[in-house]
């Protein structure tokens, strides 16, 4: 942990600066590629819709020692009412057999047949679920309505809490996450159920949550940016991403751990159903969300902001300064390699200040630098 803590500290001060914002083209390209794959997969493979979208009946019943898949299938088929070949899945506790849509009388027949064939205590041990063909569509339609309203609500909220550019970036990141998740579902042909659709909606909340935390820091870092001429918006934003990187990673890990537990139990023990559907979609979506809040959302905000006049001129001023600094202050490179010395000394020094000193060896710091040069040795001994 001490190493992790150190990395955190160095990221915080900007010593280790992973250039997320500056490499936005790379990220856009990576995401673009994934998105293209997702869309192509959606168009060609499509989604594997579950019984809720197609209509049908699912029977779940406990297993008995020695019962094989074909036994389970036969037990259902022997009822005489199932015409199509049922889909049989083994779950941690028994069997899950999916048939075409059956009437409630036929459902009872299947229950009886399974009970007799597998010698279950009573027919009610067989749990049936019948779903109409349009049920999944109904739910999904509702979910999409919810999605639209959610997006509007969030845009308004973020526009008030932050500003519209951040709201737009957050929504783009969101769309990105959803598309990727859907794409993964299509590629791997996971079954899409209403639970997955709802899990997808939850990702919205999660992805935004993550993004919001990063944006909060970006805003803090860029609040009085134009007055200082020390770094461009993109640089400040990048610093924010780096400063919240440890948090983002921790958050993602901590969020993914319970979901992983859920997935493990849902898929491993129960086999199928609500838990697995929710956990799976959350797992994929959260991964995408963690990536997008760092590599997509913030670069987009930076791009949008840089279009503004004030930040464009700022960028020019900063560039001019950096050039002159480079010309004048070549020898100072080594100074920059001793970043510990640059731990903020002014009482009001914010993390921005800390970052500034490291990222940019501007001439403005020259005078002070002389003073601080002697300090490390002196202070350390004190």
């Amino acid at each position: 942990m001490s190493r992790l803590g150190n990395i955190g500290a160095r990221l915080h001060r900007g010593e280790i600066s992973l250039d997320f914002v500056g490499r936005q083209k790379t990220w856009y390209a990576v995401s673009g590629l994934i998105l293209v794959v997702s869309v192509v997969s959606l168009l060609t493979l499509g989604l594997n819709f579950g019984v809720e979208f197609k209509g049908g009946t699912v029977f779940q019943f406990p297993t008995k020692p020695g019962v094989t898949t074909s036994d389970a299938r036969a037990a259902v088929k022997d009822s005489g009412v199932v015409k199509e070949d049922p889909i049989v899945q083994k779950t941690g506790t028994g069997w899950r057999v999916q048939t075409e849509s059956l009437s409630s009388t036929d459902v009872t027949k299947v229950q009886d047949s399974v009970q007799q064939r597998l010698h279950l205590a009573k027919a009610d041990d067989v749990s049936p679920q019948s779903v109409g063909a349009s049920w999944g569509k109904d739910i999904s339609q509702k979910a999409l309505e919810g999605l639209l309203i959610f997006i509007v609500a969030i845009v308004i909220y973020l526009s008030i809490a932050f500003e519209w550019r951040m709201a737009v970036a957050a929504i783009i990141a969101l769309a990105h996450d959803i598309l990727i998740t859907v794409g993964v579902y299509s590629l791997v042909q996971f079954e899409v159920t209403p639970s997955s659709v709802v899990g997808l909606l939850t990702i919205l909340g999660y992805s935004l949550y993550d993004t919001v935390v990063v944006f909060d820091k970006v805003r803090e870092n860029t609040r009085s940016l134009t007055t200082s001429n020390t770094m461009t918006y993109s640089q400040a934003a990048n610093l924010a991403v780096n400063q919240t990187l440890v948090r983002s990673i921790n958050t993602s890990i901590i969020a993914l751990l319970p979901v992983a537990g859920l997935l493990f139990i849902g898929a491993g023990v129960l086999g199928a159903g609500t838990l697995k559907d929710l956990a799976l979609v959350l797992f994929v979506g959260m991964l995408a969300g963690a990536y997008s809040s760092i590599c997509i959302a913030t670069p987009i905000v930076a791009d949008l902001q840089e279009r503004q006049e004030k930040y464009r001129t700022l960028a020019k001023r900063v560039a001019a300064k950096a050039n002159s600094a480079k010309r004048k202050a070549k020898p100072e490179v080594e100074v920059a390699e001793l970043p510990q010395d640059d731990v903020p000394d002014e009482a009001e020094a914010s993390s921005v200040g800390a970052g500034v000193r490291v990222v940019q060896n501007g001439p403005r710091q020259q005078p002070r630098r002389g003073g601080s040069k002697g300090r490390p040795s002196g202070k350390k001994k004190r």
Partner: protein
Amino acid sequence: MFWQGQKKPKLALDLAGGTTVTLTAEPTKPGAKIGDSEMGQAIKIMRERVNGLGVSEAEVTKQGNNVIVVQVPGQGQERVVKTIGTTAKLEFRQVLVAAPVGVTQQAPAPAPSPTSTGKTKGGASPSAKPSGSASAKASGSASPSASASATPKGRALAQALTKASATPKPSASAKASASPSASQSLTPQQLQQLQQQLQQQQQQQQSTGEDFSGVDPAVKAQFDKLTCVGNDIGQGRTLDPAKQAAVCAKPDPKTHKVDYKFILSPAKISGEQITKAQAMPPDPQNGRMQWVVSLDMNGSATKAFATFTQQAAALGENNTRNHFAIVLDGTVYSWPGVKEAITSGNAQIEGQFNQEDATDLANVLKYGALPLKFKQSSIESVSATLGKDQLTAGLVAGAIGLGLVVLYCLFYYRGLGLVAISSLAVATIFTYEAVVLLGKFINFRMSLAGIAGAIVAVGITADSFVVFFERLRDEVREGRTLRTAVERGWVRARRTIIVADAVSFIAALLLYWFAIGGVKGFAFTLGLTTLIDVVVVFFFTKPLVTLLARTKFFGRGHRFSGLDPRTLGMTKRVPNRPVGTKEA
């Protein structure tokens, strides 16, 4: 905290075992809207049907604007589905034969009236109000109004002009009627006479048996077999409108007992033909002392009703066949007698209604008239065993998730990890208590999806600590003493936590609003735990950290405190540094 009373969360059917039927309403005409009041009525009918099954704790709830979810604990899917699956159908049929159910039905439950004679026909202790309803209405309207007696609250009612009993309660009632112009009013004395006649007749009928002339023998056989107990009541049964039918009265909503059974003629009027029905408040100035239900019917029904009422009125009020049955959903909701031929298509049903009774009956007439079609979107039955398995799996998943988070917190935050863990523990207890309390007060039931929501929320809750701790560490890295770092870090973290939790809560809220089925539970726990998270962070985690900052272990940044400045990347000069810097 709230240890009294129930201590365990209520479980939803996917964990406790039971049958869930999801019904989606479809507009009667394409493009037509499904109104709230229609849905309300449909839910009422469903509830009555399900209650008719005699299962306790059955729940009928509306979700979204066109979905009804019926949850019945326990087993027996077929019966449930059959009962609630049919479309509500309203018909008027002539009563051919009426007989009390069970011989012991002499003094029916609701209100034994002092006069036993009046009750030979059993039933709902009809009481006629001589003054109010029995006397003709002197209203100025030119339209003849129907007269009818009805029992409110769906008890099948005895005939018009039965005895004026002293018990006002169970109502039933009497007649009135007549168009103002041709109105013949009955004085209380006349009424009394009629009632006595009726009683005599009833007694005769009782002894001689019912008049089965013209009754289809097959229907008679059915009628004889009809016990009107449990499934035999036939709620939700679809009757062939063109045929005679043996039907039970609607069971009492509380006792589920049925007092009467009938043989009815083919349908005279179907619900769709009733164009308007409304409850009208008492209007003493026009001699109307009670609530009445007024109904209008369309042209073809007016004709049919006129023919029927002419015949029925001619039979005299004492004749069983003078009555028509309002059949809803396969049972007789009410069976008013006919006083007058009603040719205008506007009828009034009178009885000792209070506002609720009258409104209920009007709703039945109104919405029975536009039967909402429901399609069974999903029928899910979970055996008790499967439910238990799912509950165990959910809890194990939660334990694993929580365990992993605890381990990670300890690994990464050391001492601070303990703060995180105790906060998580507090949040867990809060959540559990909240679920128990909500179960008690708003009947919230924990479902598998709800458990999943709670597990996912562990991440959100833990993240608040992460935000706070990272801020705290940032402040320490900048060289502040722990005490100041806590305060400064908190101010900054607070904002982030609130904004982030707000987003998460909005998501949960909308999800809850729009979700149908089990997913609602997921959204609910997600939103609930988000709120709890805010409470815990503000009132537990932060104060705890403030307190701990004063201890030597944390304040000095012990190696295992998670706040060791050296491991955080600060140099050794930490404690005095800010001061020194300022001086420098």
